[in-house]
């Protein structure tokens, strides 16, 4: 099984639009919406839910007022400012480290599990999908991302699918790392704006940090041709091939309003601009499929060498 992750650093570059379009093009794929803060793929793919699993985040401390003598040692020991002056716990600050349980001489502090969100398995018109629903303000969204990816792999096994397509979260922090670790290929989506380029650079750094092969796609490329060339130049230097350049268009929004992928929309309306847009995505998808097949080949070869040694 192979895993393709779509990320962008900057939000709003079109990750979900592209992932949804890939869903209608891929023959044998499971989808994983790993933007657990705000999962938007279900809005287009309207899934039928199979099951939900709670994701336990970090634990939460609680102080037993019967036992607490107010000595203040927990307050001193907590480095997150989660113990309040009245010896209650601020749940938004508590990181579940349990230092307070050690600091308390009265055994008044205990840790309780807390559910940070749910991983949802479902079936869509394009096949199985997993997505996450993070509770508002919860931490450990990386943990939920990991659970969503596990669900996706389980679905791939159950339904004998060869590919998992991951719709990643924005940024470069914990949830993004959880979304790309172990992926075979990362598609970096960008746009020709100063922030698009800056965030692309950080995202490339991240893929290099994890040693994951990456390719790029420039969305809204004709918004600023000069910046677009700058991005191409950067990608060339970084060894990241640019697989497609999509135009600045309202096609994705029009498709989204009808709860359709760009590919479905194109086959239904047949307008020239829509069909052209969809065809560019088709070409991109073909190139990605080729790359995925090449990558698994080169990944396999060092293993083969190792075996030869024995």
């Amino acid at each position: 099984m192979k895993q393709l992750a779509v990320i962008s650093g900057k939000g709003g570059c079109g990750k979900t639009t592209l992932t949804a379009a890939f869903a209608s093009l891929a023959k044998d794929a499971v989808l994983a919406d790993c933007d657990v803060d705000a999962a938007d793929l279900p809005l287009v793919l309207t899934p039928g839910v199979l099951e939900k699993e709670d994701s336990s985040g970090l634990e939460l401390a609680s102080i037993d007022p019967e036992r607490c003598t107010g000595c203040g040692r927990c307050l001193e020991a907590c480095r997150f400012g989660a113990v309040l002056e009245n010896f209650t716990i601020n749940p938004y600050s508590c990181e579940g480290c349990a230092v307070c349980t050690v600091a308390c001489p009265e055994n008044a502090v205990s840790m309780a599990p807390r559910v940070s969100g749910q991983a949802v398995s479902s079936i869509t018109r394009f096949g199985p999908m997993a997505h996450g629903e993070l509770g508002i303000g919860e931490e450990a969204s990386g943990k939920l991302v990991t659970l969503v990816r596990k669900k996706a792999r389980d679905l791939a096994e159950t339904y004998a699918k060869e590919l998992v397509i991951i719709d990643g979260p924005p940024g470069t922090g914990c949830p993004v790392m959880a979304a790309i670790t172990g992926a075979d290929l990362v598609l970096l989506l960008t746009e020709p704006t100063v922030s698009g380029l800056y965030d692309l650079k950080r995202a490339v750094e991240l893929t290099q940090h994890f040693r994951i092969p990456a390719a790029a796609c420039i969305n809204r490329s004709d918004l600023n041709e000069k910046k677009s060339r700058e991005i191409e130049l950067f990608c060339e230097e970084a060894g990241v091939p640019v697989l497609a350049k999509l135009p600045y268009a309202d096609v994705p929004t029009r498709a989204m309003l009808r709860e359709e992928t760009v590919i479905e929309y194109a086959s239904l309306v047949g307008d020239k601009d829509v069909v052209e847009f969809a065809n560019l995505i088709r070409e991109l998808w073909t190139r990605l499929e080729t790359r995925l097949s090449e990558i698994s080949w080169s990944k396999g070869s060092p293993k083969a060498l190792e075996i030869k040694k024995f």
Partner: protein
Amino acid sequence: MKVAIASGKGGTGKTTVAVNLALSLGGVHLLDCDVEEPNCNLFLGLELEKLEYVTCQVPEIDPEKCTLCGKCADFCRYNALAALPSRVLVFPALCHGCGGCGLVCTEGAVREKPGILGILESARSDSSLEFSRGVLNVGEAAATPLIRALQRHIDNSRPAIIDSPPGVACPVLAVIGAADYCVLVTESTPFGFHDFRLALEAVKALKVPFGVVLNRDGLGDSRVEEFCGAKGIPILLRIPDDRRIAQLYSEGIPFVEEMPEWKEKFAGMFSAIRAIMESGEGTE
């Protein structure tokens, strides 16, 4: 008064609103708390200087004293320590710096040393705008400690405009929770509306008064407007879906500089927020 600029969905225009609002007002402190993608200064081009490095106390195991009992690794909730038969491994990127390993070690084998999470910077004092930002090191997971450290540098003598990260997780709540008012930036598309409602739940949970900026107005449909109308949520400003604004953005030019008539609109929005705050309304 501290005003946070937030949104559930990424790429809806938080940075655009924060930067253009700050430039329209003048005399404010702009803070970029989107430490994973700190983009404000791409539009300001200010010369920055270091305020401080933000560190996390990461353990270091003294092999002379360590008896390999494994208590530290058992205690660590973040899997930042692993006790092997011959030594204890430390994974600094997973460490939250709680200090628990040092507390449970009976041999005094745990020392702490600062690990750098990121850097806080601010514009030089002779700059046209007071500006500070945090930049998370690539490969570091924890944005929240950096955000909290940056918030300690807020200049309380003037209004603060705070650019928040996207989403509804812990780092976002750290920003909104410390604000007096929250501006939610959204666009009227299915994705925008869905994520807007998630962000709405967050501001309501924190009991921070809020209003809406409708970006790319004209794109999509009228669902945000209808929703806000029905719930009595003020729409503070509408920024049209205008290719010229998008182009200026792509060049890194704040659009109020090329379209100065917008300065008044942003200033008007800020006056409206002030009026709402003074009347004590704004929460649903």
